[in-house]
């Protein structure tokens, strides 16, 4: 029981240290290429961003987004905490999505 409490405390400390991440994805992800990583900063309580937005340039030929993951590691969280949110760095990872289902060749129907 003591170990469970200690584990819970440790977990709480880790999660409250400013680390965060959240994943957005569709119900049937179909990834095109590999994830692309962009370092981003948000300033003045999110009033200013650098870059202002992330353009998913690796998505080609009508590809949309399959997955977006926003991550803040311990160091990034610490900077945000120390600057009271004036500087809030994060890592953004996006994956392109295959555009639709290719038709079945060979006269096999769709």
């Amino acid at each position, binding site marked *: 029981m003591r170990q*469970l409490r200690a584990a819970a405390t440790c977990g709480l400390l880790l999660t409250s240290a400013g680390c965060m991440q959240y994943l957005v994805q569709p119900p*049937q992800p179909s990834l095109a290429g590999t994830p692309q990583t962009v370092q981003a900063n948000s300033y003045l309580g999110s009033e200013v961003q650098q870059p202002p937005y992330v353009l998913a340039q690796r998505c080609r030929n009508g590809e949309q987004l399959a997955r977006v993951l926003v991550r803040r590691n311990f160091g990034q969280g610490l900077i945000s905490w120390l600057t009271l949110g004036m500087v809030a760095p994060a890592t953004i990872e996006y994956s392109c999505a295959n555009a639709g289902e*290719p038709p*079945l060749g060979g*006269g096999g129907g769709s």
Partner: protein
Amino acid sequence: MATQPSFNAKTRWKNFHESYEQTIVGEWDVFMPQQASGLTVADLKETSAQFQKLIAEARKQGLKARAVGSSWSLSRAPTTTGWTFNTNRLRGRLKVPAADVDPLYPGSADQKAGLYLFQCGNTVADVNKVLESDSQKRALFTSGAANGQTIVGATSCGTHGSALEFGALHDHIVAIHLIASGNSHFWIERKSRPVMSAAWVKGLGATLKRDDDDLFNAAVVSFGSFGVINAVVLETAPRYLLETHPATAKLDEALWKVIGALDFSAHPLFKTAGKPYFFQAVINPPTDEVLIMANYRKEGPASHQANYDLISDPKSIGPGFDALSTVGVILDRFKGVIPAFSKIAAQQLFDTKPKTGVPGEIYGFKPPLLHVASGSIAVALPDARRTLEALIALYKEIGPVPLVFGCRYTRKTPALLGFNKFDMGLMISLDGVDSENTRKFFDAAADRLEAKGIDYTQHWGKVNAYTPARLQKAYGGNVAKWLAARKQVLPDAADRAVFDNAYIADRGLAG
């Protein structure tokens, strides 16, 4: 006209589960030709030419190269220090017309009607969706537990499947289109099972190789070492449904008969339903509680609208994408909570809700998890019980390990270096969280089986401890045959060097 490959000067590559990273020189995105009415031979030729150009350029620049699909592998099999070729946009597919099948094809009329060519970037999920549609009414005979791997990535690493009366996932494959070098590409089949007509292969511009069975049996499980596999032809089954029967049972003598010998006659869970099509037992070593999954095959209905969606409960809260990396650190420090954690993890890693659906729904999309640890060991069914007892004893010696043992059973594969080496094999999937104790357990497991004199193989796409000596012991003369087959398609050492990596070098398979 296809979009030309596009270079990305990315130098850090990581696998899907983020269990390791690799420094590369860059990656090439390869695109599918526009297809108004489906994949054609001309499309395959165009992609082949693009790959040949990239391979030739890699050789010219003295770079290594590898094709990568979903980067699903937990082993370093797909790694390269040079260029990666992303194949997961190459999702062309076609139903093989009867007119293109070789007159000597020995398959039945049903098998002939169920031949499909899939380009390398199709995932297992893609394959299932195509086959299981109402227009095709076909299915894979067997499947891995996940569906995010590309069909070529999963099969090249020897994914073992899970049906009691079928072999590995790669045993669906009957033809391979291999781009070996800047000036060669091959259409490889078994001599004993010709599939595509010589005229069709000539139209593709590939060199037909079916003088024996060995070359095919080597190339089908070659983890990217023979070149780029552009496409494969699969044999398929008529569409069927699986009805899952999950249960929890005590690890008593009756259950040992099931797990250790596939004797379903004495256990109350199977008295009525009998032998399933698929059987899995998940052992949580510190307890005597076993999660059972028995799936029964039912004839497919005339019409079935499959729902492949990853279903999530919007009210739920649970571990997220990267939870296991933190959990591993915590469990290293608080080992007392591991047995309870393993029980929860088993329920998360293995689907325990009853359902009925086509195989693509049963082995469907799952929430992604990072930093998982997973290795698999295969042994002959007669060695099943003593192997499990040895591994449970090792688990207890090392101390609680955040791992559970998933037991699945499959038939032998003809692939020379196939994981499914045994006539009837038990595949023990050691699944859990990457932690200090987990790594200790993986390191010690192979030694323990050797100390007990148990013949075993390891999964190429998961954490494994293969060495040249262990490979020789597991596969004997097949290793030399595999190396000879590689030289058959890559006779020039400089061409072989392009596809060498540390993973195969460490196992004595490079050069």
